[in-house]
């Protein structure tokens, strides 16, 4: 039975059923998604700045090693963005929020697509666009809680901003 199901899975991918952790109960915050977006941007910058010192084997090894590390962190944080945004969208967002913010589903869809695109390329413009989308998501989230927001300097090496409630 196991083998049959696994073969079937290869032909027709199973749907995802989420058994997510929702601690702390009812406490949602898009801050981690924003931090992850800054991390993705930072990794993209670092990948673009990386230079091969020479064609010597040792230098090539160091270069490949560093690219691997930066890419791994970029991929992990792109997935973290998707995870955090999905949790808030799937668990917190209610019909009354959708009435006021009709573009939430499109925004979440675009964030998912953009985060996947980021994983596939070293694309600074795409990383900046992803950060902008996540910031917009954060603004909408806080608005649903009746909180105004402001953009403040993050203090991160990306020199970008973070959306915070005021």
């Amino acid at each position, binding site marked *: *039975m*196991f083998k049959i*199901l*696994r073969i*079937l*899975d290869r032909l*027709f991918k*199973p*749907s*995802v*059923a*989420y*058994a*997510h*952790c*929702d*601690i702390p*109960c*009812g406490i949602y915050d898009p801050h981690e998604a924003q931090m992850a977006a800054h991390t993705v941007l930072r990794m993209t910058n670092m990948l673009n700045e990386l230079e091969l010192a020479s064609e010597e084997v040792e230098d090539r090894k160091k270069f490949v090693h560093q690219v691997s590390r930066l890419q791994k962190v970029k991929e992990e944080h792109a997935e973290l963005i998707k995870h955090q945004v*999905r949790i808030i969208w*799937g668990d917190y*967002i209610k019909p009354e929020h959708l009435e006021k913010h009709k573009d939430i*589903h499109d925004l979440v869809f675009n964030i998912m697509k953009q985060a996947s695109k980021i994983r596939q390329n070293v694309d600074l413009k795409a990383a900046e666009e992803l950060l902008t989308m996540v910031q917009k998501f954060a603004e909408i989230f806080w608005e649903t809680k009746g909180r105004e927001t402001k953009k403040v300097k993050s203090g991160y090496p990306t020199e970008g901003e973070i959306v915070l409630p005021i």
Partner: protein
Amino acid sequence: MLLKFPFSRFEIHDRSMEPFLHDGNRVLTLNWVLPKTGDVVVFKKGAIYMVKRIVKLVGNKVWVRGDNRLSSKKVSCNKNDIVGKVVFKY
């Protein structure tokens, strides 16, 4: 109930059903059943599917919770939202 396909397959993401289900497990649901308290079910919530255990049934309302009590709260859904009962893990 009979309009549903009898079986469905799902891949589990996240951890609130540990130790019964772990992230990455796959499950087969039997959809032609009437769910009861104690059953692990997959249900539709908005645009996504979720998997939890039934803790209480009151009329059409179903209360569900993850097995990982440290990381799950009780939530509710309608009986009609239930896709099926988890009968096999693989």
